[in-house]
């Protein structure tokens, strides 16, 4: 890396860059940051990055990577260059997210009750009723205020022309919010001068909003809320502990809870204590060994029975997975129209459903151009990125696809926008996505921004932390006051 000032490198053709316009000039909402960056010596930036790594490791913000020998505690790299979103653009995203998550909650209430959307013929009945994520136990059960998905992490990407697309709606146990909060804390510690000059909207109140949302999920006064974790070997355990501490609620494991007379209690040093709301960070299948997987050691026997009687609230509700399944995803724009009578503000990525013969034929003919995903997959596992895969990889994937077409969907390979990222070669463009966190309580709240994930390998489009991704602090900035002085690097 050469000494001197940091100049961001332009992205490859056809890629939308968050910071640079096609003429390689900073976009207006990045102008002040670019000015500051230009006065920042590269070695000083490298020093800051080293400092950040050290603090992250010491605080223990680590992420477990499955199937990696000795890699049970890897640091998720946090980049020192923020991803910045202009306030007006954020306002539009926020409206789109609220609309989308509202429609999804209406959809969930509908399919577990009247099933109007199926009667209207908008979604094939068998797509829902035979879906592995459709929870028969939820049929006809009333949940407070008809809210099913209380905490949602919507993954957004940006195409070459700069428009946003929803890649997936994570409605089960979305994670990553602790990285959003840690990144902000770290950036404020490393670059206090920047925050002094920039009007970055705060995100630190997320845990308070989450607690409000969870409390609002119960119909009782001053409910006791707990966070249910699979335990310290789970990859997101740091986040579970962090959120529980920030909210001031107990972090419980399945063995800490028990059900008596259809009510849920936790075992404490003072004896049993009643639990009203469970913010669960374990999947449906592990919640209750009596109702779901009998081999689950993580859950609480009898929990579902207590839940069905309305004696405890589970957040997110059981059975939300049927709405974020990749085979249902293509219908979300229809849900917005059907339940809200509005046109969707956020786009869906065009999706081929391999269970349909026509779609399958198209996908097989274009495997080298498409991204093919498992319907129930997550975390970047079990997917094919056509353009970056070898002939052998494509051939092997073709066999798997043909063996079980219904298990796959395909989408065009989106270019994914890039953002300057501090790597070995300097400030190079790396692909990013965005996961805002939507909280659905008495009202819908979203802290400005969310988690930006970045693919640190050059050219890579996979941003998952399990696949070598990192994260960035995400800023929503208000427009500059005219004539405000630009900050200078200290």
């Amino acid at each position, binding site marked *: 890396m050469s000494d001197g000032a940091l100049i961001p490198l332009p992205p490859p053709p056809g890629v939308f860059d968050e910071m640079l316009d096609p003429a390689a000039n900073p976009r207006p909402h990045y102008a002040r940051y670019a000015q500051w960056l230009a006065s920042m010596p590269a070695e000083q930036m490298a020093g800051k990055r080293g400092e950040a790594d050290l603090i992250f490791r010491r605080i223990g913000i680590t992420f477990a990577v499955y199937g990696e020998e000795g890699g049970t505690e890897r640091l998720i790299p946090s980049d020192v260059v923020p991803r910045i979103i202009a306030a007006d653009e954020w306002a539009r995203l926020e409206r789109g997210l609220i609309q989308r998550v509202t429609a999804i909650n209406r959809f969930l209430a509908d399919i577990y009750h009247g099933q109007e959307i199926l009667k209207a013929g908008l979604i094939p009945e068998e797509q829902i009723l035979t879906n592995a994520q459709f929870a028969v136990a939820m049929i006809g059960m009333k949940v407070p205020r008809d809210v099913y998905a209380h905490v949602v992490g919507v993954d957004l990407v940006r195409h070459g022309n700069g428009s946003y697309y929803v890649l997936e709606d994570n409605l089960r146990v979305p994670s990553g919010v602790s990285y959003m909060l840690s990144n902000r804390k770290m950036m404020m510690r490393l670059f206090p001068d920047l925050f002094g000059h920039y009007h970055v909207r705060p995100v630190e109140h997320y845990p308070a909003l989450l607690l409000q949302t969870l409390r609002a999920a119960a119909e009782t006064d001053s409910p006791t809320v707990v966070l249910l974790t699979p335990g310290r070997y789970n990859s997101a*355990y*740091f986040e579970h502990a962090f959120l529980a501490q920030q909210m001031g609620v107990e*972090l*419980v494991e399945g*063995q800490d809870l028990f059900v008596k007379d259809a009510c849920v209690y*936790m075992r404490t*040093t003072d004896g049993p204590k009643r639990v009203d709301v469970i913010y669960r960070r374990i999947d449906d299948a592990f919640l209750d060994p009596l109702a779901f997987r009998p081999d689950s050691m993580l859950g609480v026997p009898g929990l579902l029975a207590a839940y069905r009687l309305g004696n405890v609230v589970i957040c997110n509700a059981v059975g939300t997975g049927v709405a974020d399944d990749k085979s249902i995803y293509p219908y979300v724009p229809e849900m917005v129209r059907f339940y809200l009578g509005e046109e969707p503000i956020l786009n869906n990525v065009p999706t081929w459903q391999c269970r349909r013969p026509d779609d399958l034929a198209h996908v097989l003919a274009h495997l080298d151009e498409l991204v093919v995903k498992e319907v129930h997959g997550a975390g970047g596992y079990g997917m094919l990125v056509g353009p970056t895969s070898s002939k052998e990889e494509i051939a092997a994937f073709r066999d798997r696809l043909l063996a079980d077409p219904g298990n796959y969907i395909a989408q065009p390979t989106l270019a994914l926008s890039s953002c300057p990222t501090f790597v070995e070669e300097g400030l190079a463009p790396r692909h990013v996505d965005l996961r805002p966190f939507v909280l659905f309580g008495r009202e819908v709240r979203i802290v400005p921004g969310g988690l930006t994930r970045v693919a640190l390998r050059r050219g890579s489009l996979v941003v998952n932390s399990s696949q070598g991704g990192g994260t960035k602090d995400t800023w929503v900035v208000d427009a500059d006051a005219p004539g405000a002085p630009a900050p200078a690097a200290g």
Partner: protein
Amino acid sequence: MLSRVASHLYWLSRYLERAENMARILDVGASLALLSGRGDPQAANEPLVITDALEAFRAAGRPATPDAVARFLAWDQAYPSSIVSCLAASRENARSVRGSITSEMWENINDTWLQLSAKRRAGAEPIDSAFFDWVKERSHLFRGITFATIRRDQPYQFVRLGTFIERADNTARILSVKQARRQAATGDGLTDYYRLSAVLRSVSALEAYRDIYRDAIDSRRVSEMLIFDPTVPRSLRFCFDEVVRILEQLPQAPARAARRLAVHMHALLEHGALEDVDAVGLDAFLKRFLANNVRLGDAVHAAYMEMK
């Protein structure tokens, strides 16, 4: 407070205290070997006897040299009471309850583990005084951070409870083995002096002895001080002053058996004297104390930590 959390807090501090005690025993063993010269083959085994590790060491099939013993007790990952195993267990317990301790406490324990791992990666596996001092310092630091940062609530009490039950166990063991060996040895005044001062140094009480008795080191007084003195922080009496006080702060209803036993043990230490020890013999007295201490640990578990 969750029963499981109470258990993790209690064990996190017990393991840390155990690591510290192991470092103390090994440190004194090493310096004693230097001072007293060669010619005492049993000296090498002594740390194993104190920590009940003879069988495990023999099973590991290593030569019975002082270095091999120290390396085993400090660095053997397969032996659950080695320093490295204790620090690992302490951190695992802490990790499970990060939400119930302060971030400073967690960062300290995590940092201890990272430094230990770095030492091991460097291939060093040191068994010198500098390493044992480091272990003691990390333990001191954790107690200081705990004292300075955590709310005086149940989590604090369980951390302290683990410390003092473990510490009482350790002091009783050191005293029992060192005194038994001393009695067996012939009356060589110089060796005797080194043995006794080693006992005192291993529990950071050499200066305390001088302050209290202002006289030559005498074996009966060493026993008296480490059993009955209320001002020496590693004496049995001091540990049980703390244990009884802590149990008073915790919920009373589930802990009747534990409190009854603790108060009984405390009364023997508070109102007892060396004559009571003489009546049964030091060895028998300490053996009974150790057995009761184990029972107390079980009773505390049953009261607060069991997942019924």
